[in-house]
Every structure is written in C-alpha cells, then in structure tokens.
C-alpha cells in the first residue's frame, strides 16, 4: 500500500533522526571538555554579582574567576548543605547562622585583606562577623527594606509615613509585600507590639504576629520576592504601596512615577550582606584576594552608583559625592543612617514563624 512518496518521507525522516543523533553526540562532546580553568575560585552569590567592575583588582591580576548564582538565598543554603563545591559565598546577616550550620564556613585571615581597615566600625561589630574570636564574614554592602507608595494615589500618607499603610482597610487588595519572613512577616510582629520583632520563641508573640498576618493576607494583592514583580505592580497602579528594597525607588522615580520611599515612624529595616570563605577551599589565596578586591574603593563606588546600595566603607561614600548620593536616596553619613534603621537579625524560631506564615496563607 505504501507509495513511492511515502518511502521518500520515511527515508528523509530516518536521515533527519540520524543527523539529530549526530548533533547530539557532538554537543555531548563539548560538555565533556572543561570550559573554564579550574585554577580560579568559584564565587557562589546573588545574581548580578558577576560584574567584573566589582572586583577590579582581582580581575586585573588573575583574570575572571568562576561565578554561579542562587535565585533564592534559601536554595543557596540547601545547595551548599548538599555538598556543592564553592570557594566564596555572599550570605546576608539574617541568614548567617543557617550558613554556619552547614559546617562549611572557614575563618578569614584579615591580615591578608589590605582593605579590611576601611570597613566601618559599626559593621565590624555586627553579630556574625566574629565567631569564637575569628572573623567569619566580611560585610560588603547594605540597604533598606521599607514601603514604597504612590504619593498621587495615597497622598494622606505624605508626612505620616508608617508600615500601617499595608494594613489600611482603604487599600485592601491594593498593597503587596515580600514573600519573606525577614522582609515582611516580622513587620507583623513589630506592629503587634512584640518586644523583639525577630524573636518568636514565646508562643504568645507568635500568636500576636499571627493575628496581624491574618489581616495582612486579606489585605495584599500578592506576596512576591522579586523586585521586578513588585515594581511592575507599583508602576501600573495595580497596587499603591509595596515593600521594596531601596534601589527600586530610584528606578521607579527614574520612570517618572510619583512615588516616595517611606521612612516609617516605626523605623525602616536594614540588611547587610558580606563574603565568607568555604572551608577546605583549594584557592585560599585567591579567595582572600577576591574579598579584598570587593572592599577596594573603585569597587564600592561602582556598587553605589550602579546598584544603589550602601556599602561597607566610608571612603566610597566620600568618593561618590553628595549630589549622586542624594539622587540615590543615600545619606552622606552612612554610620548615622545605619544607626537609625532596624538591623535585620537572624530570626529566633524561624521554623515556627514559617509554619505560621504558610498556615495563614492557606486560610487557617
């Protein structure tokens, strides 16, 4: 029954399949060949931190290091815990105990960091920098978590800035928040009047936060962790207020939107991120050089100007200049700004808080 045409089709199909197999074998060959030299340390960090401008000294001396990023810091912890071989990582203050619990963080020899003296004193004194008399983590950058709101849509909050806007019944369904314990859920603890917004070891404090979170869940349009989604919603007017990091506000203003970043009467939050070295790294020297390169002033200046974050050295702030700092919403006196905010700390009973958050989201 088969026609000549049919045979031709089958022949061509077989030829096509053979060709595809051939291409796949060739591609497999390229995977087997190592692409990058293994004599470079691997930096496991936040996305975007592969810009070589952040490590000018290192790149000039050794060329580009290897880099890979996590999408979510928790997944980074899980990957490291499972045995992933990185050399340098970039944890944030509030997650340090979790990173340390993987048992893979090594002490840093600050005598090998010529830029270590430049790090601001208040940051050096933070929990987590020193553990048992050894430096385990070098602060690199910091920023704020607060509420951005549309001044044209919620003008009554101008001059009366407060986290309460997220709970304002007038804006039910028109607010958004981070899908995060440390950037959002702890605010419920703060507004519930808990003595320490980061400590939920007392069931009564957890319950108080739960009541507040139940209200928030009914208030928000959505929870999201990515600045893109949050900014999009503010830009389109879908929400009038949302929790964001400080650099989002700069971008929103640049697009000509009438927005303001709250300095809530309860205080804005401050996060700090830094670098640590993984125990047993085969690149101890280069790992130290990489950290040192990130503390150098040109690197810190580039981060202020391009990411809009605060950084850990005073020198960089002076090098940037008043006008630019003001445009970015950063203070010229970073120590003062740091002192004014609420430092994000590791959460006590994070497990319980997460369970509560899940339950509230499930409507329980």
């Amino acid at each position, binding site marked *: 029954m088969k026609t000549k045409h049919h045979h031709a089709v089958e022949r061509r199909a077989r030829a096509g*399949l053979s060709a595809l197999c051939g291409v*796949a074998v060739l*591609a497999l060959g390229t*995977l087997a060949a190592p692409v990058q030299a293994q004599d470079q340390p691997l930096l496991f960090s936040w996305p*975007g931190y592969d810009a070589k401008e952040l490590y000018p000294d290192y790149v000039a001396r050794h060329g580009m290091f290897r880099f*890979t*990023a996590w999408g979510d810091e928790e*997944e980074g912890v899980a990957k490291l815990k499972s045995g992933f*071989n990185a050399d340098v990582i970039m944890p944030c203050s509030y997650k340090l105990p979790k990173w340390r619990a993987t048992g893979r963080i090594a002490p840093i020899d600050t005598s090998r960091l010529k830029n270590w003296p430049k790090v601001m004193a208040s940051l050096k004194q933070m929990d987590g920098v020193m553990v048992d008399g050894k430096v385990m983590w070098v602060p690199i950058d910091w920023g704020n978590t607060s509420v951005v709101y549309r001044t044209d849509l919620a003008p009554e909050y101008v001059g009366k800035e407060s986290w309460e806007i997220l709970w304002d019944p007038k804006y039910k369904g028109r607010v958004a928040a981070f899908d995060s314990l440390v950037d959002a859920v702890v605010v419920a603890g703060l507004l519930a009047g808990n003595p320490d917004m980061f400590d939920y070891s007392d069931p009564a404090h957890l319950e108080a936060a739960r009541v507040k979170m139940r209200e928030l869940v009914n208030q928000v349009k959505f929870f999201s962790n990515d600045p893109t989604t949050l900014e999009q919603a503010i830009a*389109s007017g879908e929400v009038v207020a949302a929790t964001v990091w400080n650099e989002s506000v700069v971008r929103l203003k640049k697009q000509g939107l009438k927005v303001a970043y709250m300095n809530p009467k309860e205080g804005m939050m401050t996060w700090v991120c830094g670098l640590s070295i993984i125990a047993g790294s085969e690149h101890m020297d280069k790992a130290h050089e990489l950290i040192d390169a990130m503390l150098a002033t040109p690197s810190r200046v580039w981060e202020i100007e391009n990411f809009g974050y605060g950084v850990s050295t005073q020198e960089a702030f002076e090098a940037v200049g008043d006008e630019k700092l003001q445009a970015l919403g950063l203070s010229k006196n970073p120590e003062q700004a740091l002192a004014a905010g609420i430092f994000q700390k590791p959460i006590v009973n994070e497990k319980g808080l997460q369970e509560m958050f899940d339950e509230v989201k499930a409507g329980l």
Partner: protein
Amino acid sequence: MSAHPTGRFGGLGVYAVAYLTFIYLPVVLLPMFSVNDAVYVAFPLKGFTLQWYREALAHEAMLSALWNSIKVGLIVSVIATSLGMLAAKALTRYRIAGARAVIGFLSIPLVIPLIILGISLLVVLSQMGIDLSLATIVLGHVVITVPIAMFVLMSRLEGFDKSIEEAALDLGETPWMTFWRVTVPVALPGIVASLLLTFTLSFDEFLLAFFLAGDQLTLPIYIWGQLRFPAKLPSVLALGSMIIVGTFVLVIVAERIRRGGERRT
C-alpha cells in the same frame, strides 16, 4: 482527500485557529513590549526603541546561557527519547512479567518533587567527587524526561502489529535493521512528539537545573536571577522574541528545503 462533508477544514478548523490564538496569546505580547521604550512591562506603550535588542545581543552571559540550554535540551531530548523508545518497545512488544511494576518504577521521576531529586542527586554526586557541569544537568533532565518519552511512545506503539516485524526478521533482516526500517517509521509521529516534549521540558526546567549546575548556567536559571534587576527584564523579553522569530524562520527555511527535496524525488 477524505470525503468529509464539511469541506477541507470546517468548524474544526475554526476551533484550531482559536486554539492556536490561545496558545500564542501570551507570546505575541513579548515582541510588542520588547520594542517598548520603558523598563516596566505595562500599558500604555511608551515609544519605539531597539535598545533592548542591542542590550540582549551584548549580554554575553545571557547568550551563553541560551546556548547551554539549547545544547542540554538537544542532548536530553535525544537520550530520553532513545531510552523511552527502548522501554516503550519492550513494554508494548513483549508480555513481560511485572510490567506494571516496571511502568510504576519508571514513572517515579514524574511524581517525586524536583527539590528532593535535585538535593539527593547533588549529595550523591558530591560524595562521588564529581564536579557539577552541564553534563550533570543533562543527567537530571534525562531522568525526569524518560517517563514522558516512554508514555508518549507507548501510546503510539500499543497495538502495533508484531507480524510486520516478524516478517522482516524472517526475511533475514538483523534486529537492528528491522528496528530502524520497520519500527522507527511506524513510531515516527511518537518520536517527533517525544523529542519536542522532552526538549521543551528541559529547555524550561529551573529547579533541578539549579541544584545540578556548576558555573555554567542554563537560560531559565539565568532569567530567574535577572528578576532581581527589573531593568534587565526588557532585554530578556527581546531575547524571548528573538527565540520565537528565530525558530519560526528556521522552520520555514527547513520547510522550503524539504519541499525542494520533494520536487526532485
């Protein structure tokens, strides 16, 4: 043509077009916003710009992630389809003791949460001292796509007439040639569908790839990371548009070549 009363396409044709519209609806918006002169993807459109395309083409890390994804997807689709084909053939051609148990076992990768698969494969690989690379991503993706290939091919091969194969074998064809010249043509639509599906899944998979990636990333991992930087989104849209238009062009060119070949035969 079959003697269908409602003409060539009929009401079903209208439905097919509507269905294609549904499938393409989110995709046609991408090119629109990729030339929109604003960082935020929202109406109203601002103005026309090619800036995002310039950025996308200058974005080396993103392009190499794209290239990695294409390589991984291609290899995964070929390996998974081959393995799926062998399994489907065995399960449909022979009456096997414990066939149900085998099918059940082979479908575990479909049911197991990817985060567990990712973490435990990583634990094993690092215990064995194997460095992570694109090859480990391929491994993970083959594991989760094999059952898909198997299901698609089984639905094709079920009820396939054994006697044709037996005839070929009786005629003295080697089993391999029989497979290549008899079974493969019969299974062809299934093979094509399996290749397309396994490629698509691998090309879009994020979580397993994250745990199994070394310093080379695939596109989905890369794009997820870029979400932290809203200013990068438009260039990602531009890349997405280029993928769509590029594949379109590729398909049309291939079709032209095919037709050219057809005329000659």
